[in-house]
């Protein structure tokens, strides 16, 4: 499978273009790093790929076909701020089950303690919540994962643990990954190839 975008452009209504002519492709099982300065539009690109925003121009294709707007989106995204991505009035078991309930082994692999599942979101740290969000995004029908500064809030040891687990799961299930980060060292450590934003956009 191949996720690609061709000549994407984005702008806020009435404003100038944030970026123009962005083309990028990610293959199944491949991890692509995307680095660029703050505010350049990396996150927006991720949101367009995952169906959260609509591009002003250009197309997003999965295996040459546009992605249907309804139903489970095969491109899932993990956000920078996990505390906003979970419903504060749901216990985490319910949040996790929104995609599907992972098996105990997968939870352990991502470092999720079973006891967390009966807690409320405000009773977990950001790092713990992020693992829940990752597990939720890795549902059985997920083909591509956009990791937007996924571990920026974590210490180095936890970062390493999460990346090891996520990369192993992605390789096993042939999930393609787009790793959005400003940290070049991280991108080079976890990705098969790294793309720099200024090579990508003419905006």
């Amino acid at each position: 499978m191949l996720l690609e975008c061709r000549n994407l452009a984005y702008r806020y209504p009435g404003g100038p273009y944030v970026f123009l002519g962005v083309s990028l492709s990610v293959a199944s099982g491949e991890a692509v790093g995307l680095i660029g300065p703050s505010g350049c539009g990396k996150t927006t690109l991720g949101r367009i790929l995952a169906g959260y925003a609509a591009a002003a121009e250009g197309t997003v294709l999965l295996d040459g076909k546009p992605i249907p707007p309804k139903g489970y989106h095969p491109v899932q995204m993990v956000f920078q701020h996990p505390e906003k991505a979970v419903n504060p009035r749901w216990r985490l078991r319910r949040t996790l089950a929104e995609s599907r309930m992972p098996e105990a082994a997968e939870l352990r692999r991502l470092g999720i303690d079973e006891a967390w599942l009966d807690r409320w979101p405000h009773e977990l740290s950001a790092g713990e919540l992020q693992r829940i969000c990752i597990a939720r995004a890795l549902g059985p029908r997920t083909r591509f994962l956009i990791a937007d500064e996924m571990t920026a809030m974590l210490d180095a040891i936890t970062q390493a643990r999460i990346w090891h687990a996520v990369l192993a799961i992605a390789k096993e299930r042939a999930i393609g990954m787009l790793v959005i980060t400003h940290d070049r060292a991280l991108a080079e450590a976890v990705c098969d190839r790294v793309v720099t934003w200024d090579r990508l956009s003419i905006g």
Partner: protein
Amino acid sequence: MERHYRLTRRFMPGNRMNRRQRSAVTAVLIAVLLAAVSIGAALLGQGGLNTHLDMRNLPPSAMHPFGTDWLGRDMFTRTVKGLALSVRVGLAAACFSAAIAAAVGLASAALGKTADRLLSWLIDLFLSVPHLVSLILIAFVCGGGMKGVIAGVALTHWPSLARIIRAEALQLRAADYAHVSRRLGKSRWWVATRHFMPHIAPQLLVGLLMLFPHAILHEAAISFIGLGLSPHEPSIGIILSEAMRYLSAGLWWLAVFPGLALLVVVRSFDRLGEHVRCLTDPRHARE
């Protein structure tokens, strides 16, 4: 220290309850009190409402704890029955009002910009008219009586709650987890009922409980000026309005006890609302 702790636990068992448990206990007690008023009114029978001209204008005593009025009717029976009637009217009016508020608030957030502008304008319009004036008008148009009071209170008290619900729904619609849920293949309806309802339901419940005392007070006010319930129904408003005529004759118990009872019930609902809000917030869940 250990001994002191044991002693405290032994002699002040209340200390073992935390704020959340105290809230729950208080809320249940208040609900029981309000239920007792309604059930008590049904059990008291019509006997106390009959006129006994030989027992007119008696001050409070063991037999008539709230005294008797100028027709020899037992004021305790009249007060309890009046309260029960007020609670019924208040509950109906508050429920209707909350239903309108929920519908308008959710529609405003869900149906798009034009609908939102229209409904916001409607909310502002209703808020700009002093609600007592429109309440009197509506009650008058409906021909007075219980229906008029309920319709009047329901139709004038929804805007502020609708505004709160609308704001809440707008905020929820923009939340990341609502978008995530849509990308996980959930329908708009699924997201609204599963994700939004847990946030809106407590607001609605608290709003309903806060509307309640308003409704009761307005019922009393409307009946007081003669546009509400008919005089043979012993509502608190009618009791108070009739008692005014006898206050200068020294029959203080005609107004004081029913008035106090009304205050207690209204305050109870206020407290109930606060406690319920506290209990439904997951941030207090582990206390």
